């Protein structure tokens, strides 16, 4: 199995979720992160003092998939998260040695 991790723009989450669902993905785990990259942050002003905030709010989406689904899911992620503006984010795929479903103890393919 593989773990597909993607960093997307928060306001695209609903689109991505819907797209993954339609692509038959059964589950995912998301979390709030902050990103630093080509997309510059913003400036905040408090009592005349300017703060440059380098970090941009992003959402991490993690999906466990079987090896054969990887390309399809990555495709779905790219197309649904894309706005063609800097800061759309990254996707990376890592290998997973094994997966367990806590409720049943099922493993690997059955656990996803």
């Amino acid at each position, binding site marked *: 199995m593989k773990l597909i991790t993607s960093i997307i723009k928060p*306001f695209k989450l*609903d689109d991505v979720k819907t797209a993954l669902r339609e692509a038959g993905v059964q589950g995912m785990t998301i979390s709030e992160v902050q990103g630093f990259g080509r997309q510059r942050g*913003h*400036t*905040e*002003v*408090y009592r005349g003092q300017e703060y440059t*905030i380098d970090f941009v709010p992003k959402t991490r989406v993690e999906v466990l998939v079987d090896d054969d689904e990887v390309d399809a899911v990555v495709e779905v992620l790219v197309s649904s998260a894309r706005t063609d503006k800097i800061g759309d984010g990254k996707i990376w795929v890592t290998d997973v040695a094994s997966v367990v479903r806590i409720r049943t103890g099922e493993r690997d393919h059955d656990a996803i």
Partner: protein
Amino acid sequence: MTPLVTPVLAEIDAGATAWVLVSAALVLFMTPGLAFFYAGMVRSKHALGMLMQNFFAIGIISVLWALVGFSLAFGDGGGWIGDFSMIGLKGLGQASASLPGYVGDFGLVIPVIAFAAYQMMFAVITPALITGATADRLKFSAYVLFISVWLILVYAPIAHWVFSPTGWLFKRGALDFAGGAVVHINAGIAALAVVLVIGKRRNWRKEPMPPHSLPLTLLGTGILWFGWFGFNAGSALGANGLAAQAFMNTHLAAAAAMCSWLVAERVKGGHATTLGAASGAVAGLVAITPCAGFVGGLSPLVIGGLAGAICYLALSLKTRFGFDDALDVVGVHLIGGILGSLLVGVFADTKINSLGADGLFFGGGFSLLGKQLLATTVTLVYSGVVTFLIAKSIDKTIGMRISEEDENTGLDLSQHAETAYSFGGRL
């Protein structure tokens, strides 16, 4: 410290003055309360924008009120509009100051400057009410321009017609104790007009837009309820039985409306929600506002009970007709205000207020109801039309609305270069 007695007119009543000053402070406090009530309901990225629109209304409207608004509303320029005799609050500081129309039965027992301050707070909160409908998408500069013009062209005239004894609706015998028409119908229909000009929020009804902090909304509710005693009971302009009656009516209507709203929710939606409790209370406070000093006995329970249920049902109007009244200013203030203004014609009782009139259920027949209907219609039409024109022209010139990208980013960063919260253990 300081001298304590200044020459004041003989008939100034210290108790009344104390009560009206406190009431003015309470009404001022309502605008921050409204800011929290609204801000809690928007997403956190728009929270400061909402807070700012309400707080800045205190700033700009107060200045304009002192310069010209008060004179236009309470000067005597005939029934249609005041005059410029009191611009810059000219002469109000004098102990000898008096106000056109406030004679005889309506004679003031408080310093005119106290009355001007008290009325100022009403002028501040009325345009602020509109911000609930236009949440998350107004350009700050356009907003400031809008409420400034609106104060002069919409609020001041209507306040003159209804509140000033020299105003034509007042003379016709329309009754509005504390602002059912002047404040709530006026702000409610204006909110609808502006919403029609600026359109819906991006992704309205596509993406969820849950309240970011209901405790903040409940804080606003508590402050509003507290301040409303000044709003309604203060309008007795004296510390007497009428003020006490208005106080009791105000509280009972809010309580009854909270109950009926929750019952309606429970019946329709299945759950009694805290936001529902807050909204119901406000609906009841809105509806009782015009009635507060004219009704008695259990009437406030009936008025509040109706307001809670009817305003709850009115929430669906926006989805039915597809206008994005973000925080239900129409459902609560417009509908609640109309309801209250008409119910004055039903429940008013001269045994409670000899200077009022008797409503339908108190032997007065339909006459008062007719006058209330007139005042309501006039306010709806005038405020609706003029507000639409103001908003439209601002939109055509500098634009009322922020860009879609700014809307994604949020009002806080795009308009004010600030973030509402940073809880992060980060630093």
